[in-house]
């Protein structure tokens, strides 16, 4: 049927709006920044060892900056080998009494930590956004509530481990060294600390050198919760500090989240030492869209899959596989949707895309995007204005890409999506698995049988159907192949912090 043509006289009924942001034109949203005056950041922090903040033996400090403004937020101490030694000794001393404490009492500490996190949620969210550059919407609605949820969940397990591992004798592993990345600083600390404590272990945790603040605020909170000294020690520093922790003979386990490269070094270092280890490493997730998918929701899933936390997510859906029949529609809708993402001040409540975490990361993203262009992929970037100061990158998608492009092989860890097409489910599975990584993946289709068929064939540790980037403390998280070893969360995550025997 021919579309009816209608011509209407133009109607001007709306009077001019007052000066400033007009909802109808240009930037529709006036600034709506979250207040920061309640967030207490000390000018300098020591190392949290044996329940108190102490200076590093060397007295060395380094700054931590706000990537959205490049302003220095605070200075933190650089832990040397002697400080690492002290922290591990404190954890060792605390281990016996902590392990002998009635399990339900250990659980109470975890519940108390969870509740304190909820009470101070606003301060933690604001500092997380200032230190790491992520939008306040995410730190407020995701990072902090999820961190609290992990403490609640594991608090519940503390006195029920016999039900988690029925018929087995359960003992804690001992002193756990834990190294966490900069993309979800507080949440990763919670992922690591909560199961360790629930199972009766003590901890030495090293946050990333660029995002130490919420871990140090967590140290204050742990002290306020009355956690016995030495049960959790938090030391700051860069790679050398991490290496000192990994190589120290006094730890029984190392838990690491970060790059595959460092993960391999750690695995070499702990080989034949008897140290247990779990590694959560990189990813290059395939996000598969079939032609019977709910299109508009799939587009939203793709957007959240790649632009969540500026793409600084190991399980980001960075390789989009679209069935040829819907590829044109999906790409057109993605490009439209990208224009509606609000980019800017991470503390603004309307911000969807915050700052890139650091200059180094920005340079890495730019280099890989250049490689994509040089190798012949077709680039589409959204048109947001970038702030003058700080580190920023526009949401970017590549079309006309192939498996052989670097942007499809290497983890970009930024707001960059590459799109490939496929013809049949078998081809989608083959392409999805054609990567050294295997952390996560997603499938969109209206057909339940296809969901089970395809996800069963994907070699990835975390799979989502008709959604993406969903997390729950009860759900184990971890990778196949070069994406890591072991699982965190759920029963599988508990198993990483206990020694089981008959």
């Amino acid at each position, binding site marked *: 049927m021919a579309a009816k043509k209608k011509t209407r006289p133009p109607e001007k009924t709306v009077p001019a709006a007052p000066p400033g942001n007009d909802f109808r034109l240009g930037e529709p949203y006036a600034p709506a920044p979250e207040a920061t005056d309640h967030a207490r950041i000390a000018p300098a922090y020591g190392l949290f060892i044996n329940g108190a903040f102490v200076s590093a033996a060397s007295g060395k400090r380094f700054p931590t900056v706000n990537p959205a403004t490049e302003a220095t937020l605070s200075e933190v101490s650089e832990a040397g080998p002697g400080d690492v030694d002290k922290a591990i000794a404190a954890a060792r001393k605390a281990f016996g009494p902590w392990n002998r404490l009635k399990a339900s009492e250990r659980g109470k500490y975890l519940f108390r930590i969870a509740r304190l996190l909820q009470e101070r949620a606003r301060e933690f969210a604001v500092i997380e956004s200032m230190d790491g550059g992520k939008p306040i919407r995410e730190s407020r609605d995701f990072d902090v509530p999820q961190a609290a949820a992990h403490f609640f969940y594991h608090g519940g397990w503390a006195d029920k481990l016999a039900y988690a591992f029925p018929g087995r004798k359960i003992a804690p592993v001992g002193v756990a060294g834990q190294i966490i990345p900069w993309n979800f600083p507080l949440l990763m600390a919670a992922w690591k600390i909560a199961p360790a404590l629930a199972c009766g272990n003590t901890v030495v945790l090293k946050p990333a050198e660029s995002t130490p603040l919420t871990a140090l605020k967590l140290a204050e909170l742990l002290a306020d919760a009355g956690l016995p000294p030495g049960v959790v020690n938090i030391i700051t520093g860069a790679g050398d500090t991490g290496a000192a922790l990994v190589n120290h003979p006094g730890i029984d386990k190392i838990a690491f989240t970060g790059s595959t490269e460092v993960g391999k070094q750690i695995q070499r270092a702990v080989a034949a030492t008897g140290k247990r280890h779990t590694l959560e490493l990189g990813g290059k997730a395939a996000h598969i869209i079939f032609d019977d998918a709910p299109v*508009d929701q799939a587009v939203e899933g793709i957007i959240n899959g790649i632009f969540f936390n500026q793409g600084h997510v190991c399980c980001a859906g960075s390789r989009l596989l679209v069935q040829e029949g819907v590829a044109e529609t999906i790409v057109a809708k993605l490009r439209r949707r990208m224009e509606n993402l609000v980019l800017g001040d991470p503390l603004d409540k309307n911000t969807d895309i915050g700052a890139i975490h650091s200059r180094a990361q920005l340079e890495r993203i730019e280099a890989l995007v250049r490689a994509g262009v040089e190798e012949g992929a077709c680039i589409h970037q959204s048109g947001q204005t970038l702030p003058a100061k700080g580190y920023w990158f526009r949401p970017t998608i590549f079309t006309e890409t192939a498996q052989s492009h670097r942007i499809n092989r290497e983890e970009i860890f930024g707001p960059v999506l590459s799109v490939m097409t496929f013809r049949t489910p078998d081809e989608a599975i083959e392409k999805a698995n054609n990567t050294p990584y295997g952390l996560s993946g997603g499938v969109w289709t209206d057909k339940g049988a296809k969901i089970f068929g395809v996800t069963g064939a994907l070699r990835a540790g975390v799979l989502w159907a008709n959604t993406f980037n969903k997390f729950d403390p009860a759900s184990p998280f971890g990778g196949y192949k070069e994406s890591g070893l072991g699982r965190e969360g759920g029963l599988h995550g508990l198993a990483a912090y206990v020694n089981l025997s008959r």
Partner: protein
Amino acid sequence: MARTTPTPPDSPTIDAVGLAERVARFKARSLKAASKVSALKLALSMIDLTTLEGRDTPGKVRQLCRKAVRPDPADPSLPHVAAVCVYPTLVRVAKDALSGTKVRVASVATAFPSGQADLAPRLDEIRYAVAEGADEIDMVISRGKFLCGDHAAVFDEIAACKDACGEAHLKVILETGELHTYDNVRRASDLAMEAGADFIKTSTGKVSPAATPEVTLVMLQAIQDFHARTGRMVGMKPAGGIRDAKTAVTFLVMLRETLGPAWLTPEWFRFGASTLTNDILMQLTKQRTGHYQSARDYTND
């Protein structure tokens, strides 16, 4: 009019969980200062001020028309609403009361609200309302026929109604509260636009739930796809259940981010509402003076 496939074969399915997540993101948008004022004024100018009751009288309609022209006597700078919506027998009264203004007269027709009548009298009702002076016709679809799978009959009735409208604009009410699934809402939206609807509209206001943000988003996305495919713009009218300014602003955010600024005019978007007007006025006063006024400070016609 030539008959073609009534249901476009490619109506996509809707995932309810993903839909609700998207709506939650719209609700989280924060509008402040000038941005909020301009959105509130826009919302006011998009209202179809409605009275659809058995007890409606010429007196009631004339008073409503005064409210439509000047919503807040304390602030004559505010825009008038888009239209007054009444039953066909009161169209003439509204038309006279609004002569010389730009407020349009809309009329429900086609055995509103149930649509349970033979097609011939339903078409006659449209012709009567148009002859009385209606600028816009709000028809209801036969939900019974749609739900028993006779989509062709629904397509044909909409196309016939469009013909009967002549120059008047046709808004097609899907009554989403009776269609129940988002897949049905999407299919009915596609059907209505294919058959010639100028506007698609959620509800009669007589069935609950009415214009939920989720249902409205499904329809906006259908409009976007139709526009991408055919180049023809179709208007959207959520009606029923939108009672406060905050909800209305959420709908405008949804409209802007889904269809774009071109739809941000009363020509392409309407609110079917009655109590919404005074809440918008109250919020505008708050923005201007910094204080909330009492409900009694706003006229109640």
